[in-house]
């Protein structure tokens, strides 16, 4: 899909809070803790699923670096997007629009944590994992937030690279390499991101339209978005199953991902067919909620198989 040609420059965020008004909780909120927890979880699964045993202390250090790096990226995103965050219902309560943290404080906080997390990852774990962490933060800030988000409806498709990298970071931290298995985990999250965010955007199109963010429902319309959701869901289901065919997932994973993938496509079909009124809104909301469960369960099963696989084989 081509660029929309929309010229949405940042209007600048001119609220001027008293410097130093933010408490510890405000800085934690600046790190997008819910996103951070999903990033840490998928990174942890990549770390556990990778070949070779990693010392628990090094694994903990890697996870802390991933968490801090993800939080830093969130803070930098909130710094840059403060102007539109203030106008959107979903984001108006964030620390910068509320006047608890100034944009300059957020920028400084995010920049220090970004550099710190990458350097610590390199020194404590390995430099491949550090490079991937730097790529993740850089991609999220420069490619997604600054470049794509306000210019093209493909923003979350391409920007999804940043959210999909954490399992590869975990994999690289544990094994010192990137491999096909790590790439498959990346691909699952990459294909999961569009239907997840577009299901949310369907019900929030007015919010995005008001602030000039060209999300797909705003630019191409709800029906085109529903079609894209279905296409990506159909692509996601077999890719979600693929770890079972490359030895990354076992029988439990094959059954779980098969059932969840089929359910994902079924819910996407409902979104595609129910287009009007409250039924349409409910269908999109249900797919959005289920998509979170889908990713959590898929990675949880991988975690169980790899963390307890040896134990189960031993007791069998």
């Amino acid at each position: 899909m081509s660029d929309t040609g929309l010229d949405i420059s940042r209007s600048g965020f001119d609220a001027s809070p008293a410097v130093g008004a933010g408490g510890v909780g405000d800085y934690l909120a600046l790190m997008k803790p819910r996103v951070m927890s999903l990033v840490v979880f998928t990174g942890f699964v990549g770390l556990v699923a990778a070949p070779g045993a990693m010392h628990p202390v090094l694994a903990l250090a890697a996870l802390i670096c991933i968490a801090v790096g993800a939080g830093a990226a969130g803070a930098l995103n909130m710094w840059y997007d403060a102007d539109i965050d203030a106008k959107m219902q979903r984001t108006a309560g964030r620390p910068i629009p509320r006047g608890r943290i100034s944009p300059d404080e957020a920028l400084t906080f995010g920049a220090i944590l970004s550099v710190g997390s990458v350097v610590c990852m390199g020194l404590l774990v390995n430099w491949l994992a550090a490079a991937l962490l730097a790529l993740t933060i850089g991609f999220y800030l420069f490619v997604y937030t600054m470049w794509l988000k306000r210019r093209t409806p493909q923003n979350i498709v391409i920007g999804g690279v940043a959210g999909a990298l954490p399992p590869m970071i975990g994999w690289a931290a544990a094994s010192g390499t990137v491999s096909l298995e790590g790439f498959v985990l990346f691909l699952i999250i990459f294909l999961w991101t569009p239907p997840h965010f577009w299901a949310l955007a369907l019900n929030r199109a007015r919010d995005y339209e008001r602030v000039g963010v060209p999300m797909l429902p705003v630019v191409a319309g709800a029906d085109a978005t529903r079609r894209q959701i279905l296409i990506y869901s159909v692509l996601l289901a077999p890719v979600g199953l693929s770890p079972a065919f490359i030895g990354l997932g076992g029988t439990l994973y094959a059954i779980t991902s098969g059932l969840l993938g089929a359910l994902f496509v079924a819910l996407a079909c409902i979104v595609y067919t129910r287009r009007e009124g409250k039924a349409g809104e409910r269908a999109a909301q249900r797919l959005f909620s289920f998509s979170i469960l889908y990713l959590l369960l898929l990675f949880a099963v991988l975690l169980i198989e790899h963390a307890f696989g040896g134990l189960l084989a031993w007791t069998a």
Partner: protein
Amino acid sequence: MIQLTEEQKKRRRSRSIAIAWALVAMAVMFFVVTIVRLGANVVNRPF
């Protein structure tokens, strides 16, 4: 000169404590990782 309110002073204090804990945690993490990486070699050093 900016005069901070009591509430702002309280938040600044809590921020300072959080930063102190983060720095201590980082120092401990570097120390422990060093021990883990060097293992028994940590005592083998030229005099």
